[in-house]
């Protein structure tokens, strides 16, 4: 089990390899479909994302700015929908990590190599275990997109992920896809 602590540094990211199980402590920013679409359309991010991690997640949050927020559930959402946009966010904003589920495609893999970024797979559906790792909700941006689609700034402790795409061209998804297709041929 490896650890990744805030503030995140490029060197630490470059150390990570496909198959590593990692516990993250520090900040995460949620961002899913609407956020990526808006960034792609040229709207500037309301927060500085340099050396930050984006989490593909639409959390269940209750409360408001006055009373404070509470995260009731916060598992990852399917990442592949951001495939057209993710590499741009890596290029334009200098993010060092993307957390999601299901993996991403060749554009993102190239982005990881070009800009020094990793794709980290959280356990899909594990909303409660992951919500427990969220220690505070520090801010919310672009609330107009609706609660699941807004950018939530979260502080997490020992948030568990598996590296499935690294900054050196490695992709567990490509590997398993290829081997499972090969294997299937035997049974047809």
């Amino acid at each position: 089990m490896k650890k990744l602590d805030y503030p995140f540094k490029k060197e630490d990211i470059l150390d990570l390899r496909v198959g590593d199980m990692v516990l993250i402590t520090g900040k995460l920013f949620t961002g899913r479909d609407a956020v990526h679409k808006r960034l792609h359309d040229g709207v500037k991010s309301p927060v500085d994302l340099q050396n930050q991690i984006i989490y593909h997640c639409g959390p269940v949050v209750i409360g408001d700015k006055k009373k404070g927020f509470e995260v009731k559930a916060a598992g990852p959402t399917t990442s592949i929908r951001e495939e057209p946009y993710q590499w741009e966010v890596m290029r334009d904003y200098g993010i060092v990590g993307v957390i999601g589920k299901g993996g991403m495609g060749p554009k993102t893999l190239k982005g990881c190599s070009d800009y020094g970024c990793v794709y980290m797979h959280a356990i899909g559906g594990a909303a409660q275990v992951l919500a427990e790792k969220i220690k505070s909700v520090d801010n919310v941006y672009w609330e107009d997109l609706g609660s699941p689609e807004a950018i939530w700034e979260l502080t997490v402790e020992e948030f568990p992920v598996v590296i499935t795409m690294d900054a050196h061209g490695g992709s567990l998804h490509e590997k398993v896809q290829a081997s499972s297709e090969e294997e299937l041929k035997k049974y047809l």
Partner: protein
Amino acid sequence: MVKKKAKAKKVVAKKAVKKTTKKTTKKVAAKKVVAKKATKKVAKKVAKKVAKKVAKKVAKKAAPKKAPAKKIAVKKTLAKKGGDQLFDSLLELIRKTSAEIPGDIQKVILEALHREEKNTTAEYAMNIIKANIELAKKKSQPLCQDTGTILFYVSHPVGFNQTEFTKTVHKAVRKATEVGFLRQNSVDSLTGKNDSMNVGPGHPDIHFHEHKKNSVEIKLMLKGGGCENVGAQYSLPNQALGAGRDLDGVRKAILDCIVKAQGKGCGPGVLGVCIGGDRGAGYVQSKEQLLRKLDDENSVADLKKLEKDIVETANKLGIGPMGFGGKTTLLGCKIGTLNRLPASFFVSVSYMCWAYRRQGVSLKGDNSIAKWLY
């Protein structure tokens, strides 16, 4: 959770007091006098106890002995007084469905965990899934943040008021969303607006079936978007797959769907499959297959064989939990058929993630929960 339950009981008790006061007999009145004489604290306690007892008695009395009377009772409660109790039962059904995985699913998940090799990412994933199941139940909170499409399957007797029932379902869904059993999860497809309440065209999706029994049975499935997105429909013959219009062709289509779904639908999952029907009915039936218990057996020998074969073959492909690689790709496969046109041959596949949220209740005449169905 204990607290919550206690609260719920209090609420029910209070409601029972309201409902029953009018109907209470002299006996109760006498007991009330006694209660008044006692200190205030004691009075409260006694009153509550009495209320509970009376509630039970009244409920028993209200339950009719003869069959014809029962029918009328069902109709009456739904039309008038049943609203509140139905609301409570529906809310509890939604809560339990969202927070607790049914026993048949939990069993196969634990089996899958033990199958995976130690210290692999697959075992790691299954362990987190197991912890998540336990935590969600303990905290009485959504198992997964995507509380999904809300699918109700309602079996009801003749004369059941669907309009009233639908209204109460909407009310319960709104409440469940407000308290966080459900996520704000329903979006206008044109404007992208989220009404925050999960109620809109097609949502919740309620399927009514009339049956011969006198009772009302409600099944609920919360089906997440990630796994819904990897469902697929094949029109056979399919040249690319070499799949003809026979069971071997069906098998090829299903296996293709599994390989394509890898990693994306939060595996290990379960497939609901329909052979035949038109495109619409095929998908509806494929989802209804997911209402079957995982350990049931298909009564059609060929389908039983195919279901088993699909699971075994899928688990040889090495896709594994979350697509990390590993031994368990599929937890189950349920296949049904519908008649088709001579010109069409559809295979419709619905994929359900490990966060398999389905529950059901049968209701008593007063709309309280008689029994959990899973």
